């Protein structure tokens, strides 16, 4: 009984192999009955954790229950950790404690001090950590249990896939972090034959995995697989521009989950399979939503190298733009009855969300109906704008999704575009030569008047000219988003 439970819990193939080889039952060396009780307790903890994780995601569906969801998720994780700590595999605790203290010491400041505008970077960085953990565990088990003759090919294949995914997610997420933090150039980096090289490196890594599945005792192949996977992670993110980051972050999220799940297959741990599958599903859904919102396919995002085609576009005839002052904008906003604000990444960069809140307060006080139109890919990760506006304490029922609000632009007196660009570019609707053609956009151009706050007339992230700025009803407000919104708010308060 005790060996059975022990196998279910931890040993799995590893324990079975060890038993077959040495002819002894491994867990018997730890002592019989105590182990069974211990491991049954561990299994109960893991089962409880699974239920918690599912409930946690379920409760996250609405803002009213979301915090409860987060709490039960944390409770589930606590149960899982307790379960692991008491399992009979663990015989000493000093290194575990060291690891936990270091991890907590790094995690707490990252969570509490990081400004909300930096959430995409933090997320990318923690994907890197999660993936590194998964890859390291895989590598350790390879050398301890599986890298020898007699390992079934499919076990080795799964283990190799796990290490490959973990390693590529690690470097890929670090690259994404670098681009988001602007340590690395945010423009796509491309060269001739890039896709060919990428596919070559990936096939090399896969071939290593196949070779190991056939000859599991050839342990020298593993370092090659790891290096190729790490390299592929870097090369995968090189050609990806900042505008595609939401999709890529979601995809990396999915990979991290998948690698945890594969680990569960190899180590016979169903908690890992379930939690990893939940995470993988979440990343998959988010990346599908992001792709749909840009009318692009996965392959196009990953291999399309956005931002290359536009060089020729920019020499088109330049129509003049009209600009205005904060004072004039404030007067028009003050007499409007319906205003829709379109926030974009520029608002995040300028940290303008608190000034936007001031503007919102002044307008609401005057009886103006103010709502926010949020494009799914605005910002650098899914839901980025919502978090920033929520941080500025704008009530979330004023934040509207694209489908919900797009019909209302025609009735709006003013559309105020703050640091958004491609998501309001009408070229997406009618210009087949535009790189963003077909992308669903916010209909800001249908509002009676459009104010667009922008630092300068430089094209946006995708490097595309925006027709919205040259429309008859559009007035540009040049300057830093925070300063401009601040002065509009001030003008409004002076008018009271």
């Amino acid at each position: 009984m005790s060996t059975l439970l022990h196998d279910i819990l931890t040993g799995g193939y590893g324990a079975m192999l060890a038993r077959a080889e040495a002819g002894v039952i491994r867990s018997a060396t730890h002592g019989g009955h105590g182990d069974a009780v211990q491991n049954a307790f561990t299994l109960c903890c893991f089962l409880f954790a699974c239920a918690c994780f599912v409930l946690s995601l379920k409760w996250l569906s609405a803002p009213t229950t979301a915090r409860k969801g987060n709490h039960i998720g944390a409770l589930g994780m606590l149960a899982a950790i307790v379960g692991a700590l008491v399992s009979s595999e663990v015989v000493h605790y000093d290194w575990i404690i060291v690891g936990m203290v270091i991890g907590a010491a790094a995690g707490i400041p990252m969570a509490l001090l990081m400004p909300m505008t930096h959430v995409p970077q933090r997320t990318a960085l923690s994907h890197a950590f999660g993936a590194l953990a998964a890859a390291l565990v895989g590598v350790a088990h390879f050398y301890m249990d599986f890298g020898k003759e007699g390992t079934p090919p499919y076990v080795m294949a799964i283990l190799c896939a796990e290490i490959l995914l973990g390693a590529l997610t690690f470097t890929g997420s670090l690259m994404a972090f670098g681009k988001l933090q602007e340590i690395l150039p945010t423009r796509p980096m491309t060269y001739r034959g890039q896709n060919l090289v990428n596919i070559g490196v990936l096939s090399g890594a896969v071939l290593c995995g196949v070779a190991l599945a056939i000859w599991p005792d050839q342990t020298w192949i593993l370092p090659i697989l790891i290096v190729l996977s790490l390299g592929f992670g870097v090369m995968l993110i090189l050609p990806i521009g900042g505008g595609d980051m939401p999709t890529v972050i979601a995809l990396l999220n999915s990979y991290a989950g998948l690698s945890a799940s594969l680990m569960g297959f190899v180590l016979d741990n169903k908690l890992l399979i379930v939690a990893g599958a939940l995470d993988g599903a979440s990343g998959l859904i988010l990346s599908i939503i992001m792709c749909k919102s840009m009318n692009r396919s996965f392959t196009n995002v990953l291999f399309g190298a956005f931002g290359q085609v536009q060089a020729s576009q920019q020499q088109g005839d330049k129509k003049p733009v009209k600009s205005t002052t904060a004072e004039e904008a404030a007067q028009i906003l003050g007499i409007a009855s319906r205003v829709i604000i379109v926030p974009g990444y520029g608002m995040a960069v300028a940290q303008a969300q608190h000034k936007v809140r001031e503007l919102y307060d002044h307008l609401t006080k005057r009886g103006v109906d103010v709502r926010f139109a949020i494009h799914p890919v605005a910002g650098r990760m899914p839901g980025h704008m919502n978090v920033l506006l929520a941080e500025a304490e704008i009530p979330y029922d004023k934040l509207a999704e694209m489908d919900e609000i797009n019909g209302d632009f025609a009735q709006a007196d003013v559309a105020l575009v703050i640091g958004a660009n491609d998501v309001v570019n009408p070229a997406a609707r009618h210009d087949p030569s535009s790189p963003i053609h077909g992308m669903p956009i916010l209909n800001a151009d249908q509002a009676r008047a459009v104010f667009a706050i922008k630092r300068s007339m430089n094209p946006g992230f995708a490097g595309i000219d925006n027709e919205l700025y040259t429309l008859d009803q559009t007035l540009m407000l040049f300057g830093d988003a925070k300063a401009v919104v601040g002065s509009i708010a001030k003008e409004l308060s002076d008018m009271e």
Partner: protein
Amino acid sequence: MTSDLFSHLFVFLLAAFLGLEVIKRVSHMLHTPLMSLTNAISAISVVVAIQLAGQGHSRLGMVLGTIAVACAMTNIVGGFLITERMLRMFKKREVKP
């Protein structure tokens, strides 16, 4: 052993479909917290990292396991805390002091 593989595939399949159904219903406005929460949950590999760092017979396993525990723990602590911080900000109506 093939039966093991299939019982795992069953679990994986069910969990993946359950995940797709549950997460489809998550409000778009909460996608950033969703991502940081699933990020914390994906650090579930802490479980096997702990077993690796605490076992007594492989030094390599202990070293790699300890690093893995530290990495996963960063995610867990950071992930749940920042999710909490974000979710606290979502308010329906402002509370007037």
